[in-house]
């Protein structure tokens, strides 16, 4: 394989790497060893301790520094004479525009989120530079090649939407531990420590709607001079006791469900905590505040009892008020905030206890709450090797030999590494084939702002959109806009679609474009009166935009990208080729997942096979998960 022609193609090549994390470190090393001499690398993150088990270019002493820069320095140590240009920046920044991208011979992604991947996909299409995509989770991984016109683009196949849960499941009828986590994190934690002005669905719906005078805000607010432990118990009793009793009063809800039991602090922890713990003022610096240490709960893998969880709950609350007063009111949950993780674990466990759901350890809870992706070095190394093999084909213009390669945990027909021929572009792909989309919307109710936020930015992934009807610009973003135009656009945003200056009616076609991505698409607008509040909370339905169905009521694999992409499971699906079987996978944790079956072709088969379930796996902390959609659910007004 190392012919003269190949070596010189490699030497001349200018390569862009996006991501310097798990895959990035392995990839940069292998590229350098393989003879690449001009590599550019973009990564916005800094190094954390949990990276060090696999991102081997980094050391303990590098924690806090830029990944792109440290990776470059580390590789130069064994290849001092090559050029590596690091960018500690977000690839979505405007400077990484088409002019930037077109300089490269190939782009290699080692990203951890769908948003950035779509963005890079569009730029690569715009400049006709091949893109090699990849992803890993645990022992699974994949590499795919995307070349405009020849293969599918990254968006030709549907990428599943993030997992969402109906509001009432979270607020009233949880049945799984993850529901308790979402409640603890996005409702309770947010209510107590987050922005007070945020709408919050914390109170349960009851049949008794006449209590509007008892606004929930009063209950959760810490009263002047109130003893912290008293406050803690008051909150505890309200959410785990009172609210449960209120929920129980609605008989309908519990007809076919197990009833929760109310829990009061006096029954679980009869004695005042401060008497028990004695002197807990010996805590050190504010940053290291942790309950586990002071309560001698050393092992994060232990499952605490109800009383231990209750102790952690109260003590964590107390420590927030005592040691981190200034943070209260502007905190969002951060998985690396030990105290926050302890609090959320305890709260989720108490709620779980109430509803008869098995309790979980802090280690497990943290993984769920923080959407932590499990990861090892070996898979990343394998994938990096496969990426370079494909990259070299791109440079040699060897496009008949491009492959998608899947790295499996369990062999399928003896194969641990399974190559598959890439598919031709999807003619209905709205990204690379410019197919028009359709939008059903109530044009009198929905505003342009909703359209821009939820559809154009949200679903279509545009960052700097221009929205036009015919020759009129309804809205655009830009740096050099005139003031009066900016004012007109701002006014347009607040108007219902039917009230816009250029009379948008049913049957109108809107053209939306992102100038940075050089991506445009047209949307046919159709009026519809009614939308289902639960199933269509946005009040708008976009079709032709292919979104894979999400199994809402199935167990969710809580760790990492899990559900949010076609995930980990395709390996099992590949295994069950040609059979319609429901795949069960038991993971390291306790969750099982059931997936819909899709058929798959193999490299020796002809092209007329059904398409495989896209194995879109992500590394690192994938933010595709619960939070994003959940917020829109929370913010929605309840009737």
């Amino acid at each position, binding site marked *: 394989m190392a012919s003269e022609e190949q070596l010189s193609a490699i030497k001349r090549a200018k390569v862009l790497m996006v991501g310097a994390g798990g895959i990035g470190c392995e990839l940069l090393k292998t590229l350098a060893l393989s003879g690449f001499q001009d590599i550019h690398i973009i990564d916005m993150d800094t190094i954390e301790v*949990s990276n060090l088990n696999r991102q081997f270019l980094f050391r303990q002493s590098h924690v806090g520094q830029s990944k792109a820069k440290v990776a470059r320095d580390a590789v130069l140590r064994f290849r001092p004479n090559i050029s590596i240009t690091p960018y500690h920046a977000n690839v979505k920044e405007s400077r990484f525009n088409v002019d930037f991208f077109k300089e490269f011979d190939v782009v290699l992604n080692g990203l951890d989120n769908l948003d950035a991947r779509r963005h890079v996909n569009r730029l690569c299409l715009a400049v006709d530079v091949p893109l090699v995509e990849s992803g890993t989770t645990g022992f699974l991984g994949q590499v795919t090649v995307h070349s405009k016109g020849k293969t599918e683009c990254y968006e030709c196949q549907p990428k599943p939407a993030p997992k969402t849960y109906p509001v009432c499941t979270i607020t009233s009828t949880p049945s799984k531990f993850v529901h308790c986590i979402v409640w603890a994190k996005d409702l309770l934690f947010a209510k107590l420590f987050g922005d007070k002005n945020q709408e919050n669905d914390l109170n349960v719906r009851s049949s008794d709607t006449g209590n509007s005078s008892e606004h929930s805000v009063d209950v959760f607010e810490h009263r002047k001079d109130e003893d912290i432990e008293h406050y803690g118990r008051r909150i505890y009793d309200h959410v785990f006791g009172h609210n449960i009793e209120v929920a129980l009063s609605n008989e309908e809800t519990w007809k076919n469900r197990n009833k929760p039991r109310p829990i009061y602090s006096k029954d679980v922890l009869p004695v005042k905590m401060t008497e028990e713990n004695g002197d807990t003022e010996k805590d050190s610096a504010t940053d290291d505040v942790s309950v586990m240490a002071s309560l001698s709960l050393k092992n994060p893998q232990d499952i605490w009892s109800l009383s231990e969880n209750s102790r952690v709950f109260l003590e964590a609350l107390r420590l927030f008020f005592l040691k981190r007063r200034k943070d209260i009111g502007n905190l969002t949950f951060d998985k690396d905030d030990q105290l926050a993780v302890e609090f959320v674990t305890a709260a989720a466990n108490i709620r779980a206890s109430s509803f008869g759901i098995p309790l979980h350890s802090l280690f497990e809870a943290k*993984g769920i709450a923080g959407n932590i992706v499990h990861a*090892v070095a070996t898979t990343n190394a394998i994938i990096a*090797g*496969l990426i370079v093999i494909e990259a070299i084909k791109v440079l040699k213009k060897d496009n008949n030999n491009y492959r998608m390669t899947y790295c499996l945990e369990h*062999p399928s027909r003896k194969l641990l590494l399974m190559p598959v021929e890439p598919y031709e572009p999807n003619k209905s792909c709205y990204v690379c084939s410019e197919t028009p989309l359709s939008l059903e919307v109530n044009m009198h109710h929905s505003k342009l702002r909703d359209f821009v936020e939820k559809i154009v930015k949200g679903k279509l992934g545009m960052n700097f959109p221009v929205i036009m009807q015919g020759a009129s610009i309804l809205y655009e973003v830009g740096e050099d806009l005139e003031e009066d135009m900016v004012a007109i656009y701002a006014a347009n945003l607040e108007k219902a679609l039917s009230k816009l200056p250029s009379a948008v009616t049913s049957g109108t076609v809107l053209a939306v474009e992102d100038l940075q991505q050089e991506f445009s698409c047209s949307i046919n607008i159709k009026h519809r009166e009614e939308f289902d509040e639960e199933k269509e909370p946005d009040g708008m339905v976009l079709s032709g935009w292919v979104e894979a169905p999400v199994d809402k009521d199935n167990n969710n694999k809580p760790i990492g990208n899990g559900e949010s992409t076609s995930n980990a499971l395709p390996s099992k699906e590949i295994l069950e080729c040609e059979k319609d079987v429901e795949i069960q996978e038991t993971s390291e944790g306790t969750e099982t997942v059931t997936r819909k079956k899709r058929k798959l072709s193999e490299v020796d088969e002809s092209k007329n096979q059904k398409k495989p379930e896209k194995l879109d796996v992500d590394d690192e902390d994938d933010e595709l998960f619960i939070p994003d959609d959940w917020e829109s659910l929370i913010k929605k007004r309840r009737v």
Partner: protein
Amino acid sequence: MNGEELTEQETALYDRQIRVWGADAQRRLSKSHILVYGMKGTVAEFCKNIVLAGVGSVTLMDDHAVTDSALSANFLILPDENLSHGKTLAEACCDSLKEFNPMVHVSVEKGDISTFGVEFFEKFDAVVISCCSLAKKKLINQKCRKLPKRISFYTVDCRGSCGEIFVDLKNYKYSKKKLEETIECQLEYPSFEDAIAAPWKALPKRVSKLYFGMRVIEQFEDIEGRNAGQTSIADLPGVLKLRKELCETNSVNESQVPDALLERLLIGTSEFPPVCAVIGGILGQEVIKAISGKGDPLKNFFFFDAMDGKGLIEDISKPRHS
């Protein structure tokens, strides 16, 4: 690492991988001792992987001097003259490996491994050898198998864009979860010598051609008294002749070992870094599985060819009744 619980430092460092294989497996890894022989690119990758995984110790063996060609696929050796001057390959790699994980004990053992007695191998839980002749592979494998203790034994070799891993876990018992149950599994592995003695005719028709290719080259080196990897395209006529003989002896068609494949294996005496990464990764996973007792180990050969992109497992052993 001492005591039974993982330390806070370990829990923080290994968080992401503990979520893959669990704390028990991590503990077992931290108590394991690995011997590695032959420090080329693929083995460098493998060592990086197991050091990051947090094994107890890694003992490196390779007394060759550091040369320019050694640098080509081995990222553990820094080209800085001052750092690598006068060192052996093992010594040069040792320092870099330590940096990846200060909790792992990395050391160098010198000497001719063929002369070491069986007792030497007893302290290891896994032995990985590379760049070894046929005779050496058999010898070391036998020494490991002689011990009452079960030692996981591996050979690994990469030639150009192809790679081969051989696994011998002797009698391996492990348990795994299937749905709600825990089932006990037991696998019996043949030694390298026994495995390759399997008559070619008895093997399934679709066995990887790479298996045969590697055996032909291996035999050629053995007959010609060459060191492992010491071949070139000039040897092609001799190799083709040997292939003819072996195929006749085994009653198989010569097409089982294509010319083109043999050419590639002969030319590819230097390693191709992407293949090193792939093979080093697969091998890393196998050793981690065997040490931790978690996960189905592969049995007993793994092949990767960058040309067709397949990474496949072949189960090759002598039939019980021939």
